[in-house]
């Protein structure tokens, strides 16, 4: 269910529909890109891979922001404030997954 690894797209396989090659510290594997068809990754993008499928693009910006917050942990009032508000979104929602 949960084993998913970050890898870099190093090749988009020409001719094949939404298939690419992903690399994880020198190991290469074919990866299906169909689940990202709304926002297809390009060569150089990082994606999260699960059972040979790319599930999500990895946001470098969010990762860096997270590291910044982690480094600031416990240091200043302001940092504490930020961690409190981190990830807060509007909470109008609906449950259920499939109609």
């Amino acid at each position: 269910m949960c084993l998913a690894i970050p890898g870099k797209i190093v090749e988009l396989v020409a001719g094949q529909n939404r298939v690419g090659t992903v690399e994880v510290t020198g190991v290469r594997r074919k990866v299906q890109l169909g689940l990202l068809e709304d926002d297809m990754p390009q060569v150089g993008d990082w994606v999260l891979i699960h059972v040979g499928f790319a599930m999500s693009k990895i946001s470098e910006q969010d990762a860096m922001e997270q590291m910044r917050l982690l480094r600031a942990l416990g240091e200043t009032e302001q940092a504490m404030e930020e961690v409190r508000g981190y990830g807060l979104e509007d909470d109008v929602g609906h449950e259920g997954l499939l109609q």
Partner: protein
Amino acid sequence: MVRFRDPQIEMAHGAGGKASRRLVEGLFAPLLFPGSVEPLSDAAHLKVNGTPVAFTTDSFVVKPLRFPGGSIGELAVNGTMNDLAVSGAKGCAMVVTFILEEGLPTSVLAAEVRAMSEALRRAGVTMCGGDTKVVERGKADGMYITTAGIGSSLPGVKIDARSVRPGDKILLSGPIGDHGITILLARGDLDLEADLCSDTRSVLPLVEALVAECGPGVRWMRDPTRGGVATSLNELARDCGLGIELLEEEIPVRDAVRGACELLGLDPLHIANEGQFLAVVSQDYADMALNALQQTDGGEEARIIGQVHEEPANAVLVTTRYGGSRIVDMLVGDPLPRIC
């Protein structure tokens, strides 16, 4: 005494882990060497009419037969030499059995024999006999090779798990996981590619260097083949009744091995090696031992990876720099890729 109760033999029984141990301790040992109190080891040290000899056997079943970095023939020679080396002996002669599958192209067989010849020359050991059988198509994955090796004890060293003491250090000769991951990738089932090759080699030169400098301090050695470092060290922990602590960041693992293991959910500590060995060395000799390995060709990446303690008795613990720890046990059978 463990009795072997499994109704049939499965792949797990050959994987070098718990199932293998159950088979050996529960079926083979009680019937073939009853009354033996010594821990099982890589080679037997016997006296033949008063002359001490070291004696070992090994078998090689690998698919595919050829893989990056080597082939079954090389494994056969190096593996046999390594069993002798880590028992504290220098191999001087081998015999070999070929079980060949009907339909095996001669070119394939010839390539393996050439590879063996080259490996024998490099290892400085003589092949002095053999046997051949052919079995019907479909019965031998191309070929199976078994060997037996004989040698003489290296002076100044005595390998015995029972001599291990708290405070002793664990040395590893180099990066782990190369061989097992290379084979896994070479099978092609998982559709992974990497620039990796098997680490198959004779470790005798490294063992000789270690023993020459630190013989009196070397308590135990093993080559972590099937089952990996985790299995070898768990066997040691059980045989000496002590605990082993490994420092995670000291364990050398190549990037590509790490990447493949992360992708597949495997632990490098469970992956087979064919060109590395572990040594337990007393505290006062440990730094000298490390230096001896690092100064020898092929030992540059040797590390001290851990230490022996009283606790956790009979177990292996891996600790991280931030104070987290986990037990590492033998697997039941082969490591399996997982998705969860």
